[in-house]
């Protein structure tokens, strides 16, 4: 399937659908537990990563959760 990932076309061979967790692993995203994902313009809850399917033509954006603190 062909996806648009952070503005770039990426092809994942051999499958027509993966869930978000599987997609992040397949795309070799480092530290996938620390990313926020937007699929086709909708930000996903982390709890939905295992059940939300990505399919051909989808637009996926991910970025690292940015937080911290003084203590």
């Amino acid at each position, binding site marked *: 399937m062909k996806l648009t990932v952070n503005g770039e076309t990426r092809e994942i061979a051999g499958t027509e659908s993966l869930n978000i967790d599987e997609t992040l692993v397949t795309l070799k995203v480092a530290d996938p537990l620390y990313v926020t994902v937007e699929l086709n313009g909708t930000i996903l809850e982390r709890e939905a990563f295992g059940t939300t399917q990505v399919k051909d033509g989808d637009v996926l954006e991910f970025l690292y*959760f*940015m937080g911290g*603190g*003084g203590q």
Partner: protein
Amino acid sequence: MLVIPKNILDALIAHGRAGFPLETCGILSGNGGVVSEFHPMTNVDQSRVHFLMEPREQFAVAKELRVKGKEMLAVYHTHPDTPARPSAEDIRLAKAPGVSTVILSLAGPAPDLKSFRIFDGVSTPEPIDVPGAGE
């Protein structure tokens, strides 16, 4: 080396002071280590000891930078009550590759800004150059 023009440094300090005593946060963008834009962000934690950037704002800035051909150079946040050094949480959560961690401390009589490169749990100070400072 991170180059932050004086006008952007002033905007960043003003943002930090306006949000005090809560932590404020934002993104510094530009090219080749030279900051050209400051993107103030909402701290959804609304806390004086934590920050978490609003994800919708983060995605909007990431897409805007892509269109403009700019890089996310640094994530900035304030420490209202503590020095400008990364906390254990700052180090643990610094995951974005190649993005500096800029901390502005407002704990002393004058603002103190420092930058760090954090990789794999190790924090290294990074020099900051402010062209126009002192003029």
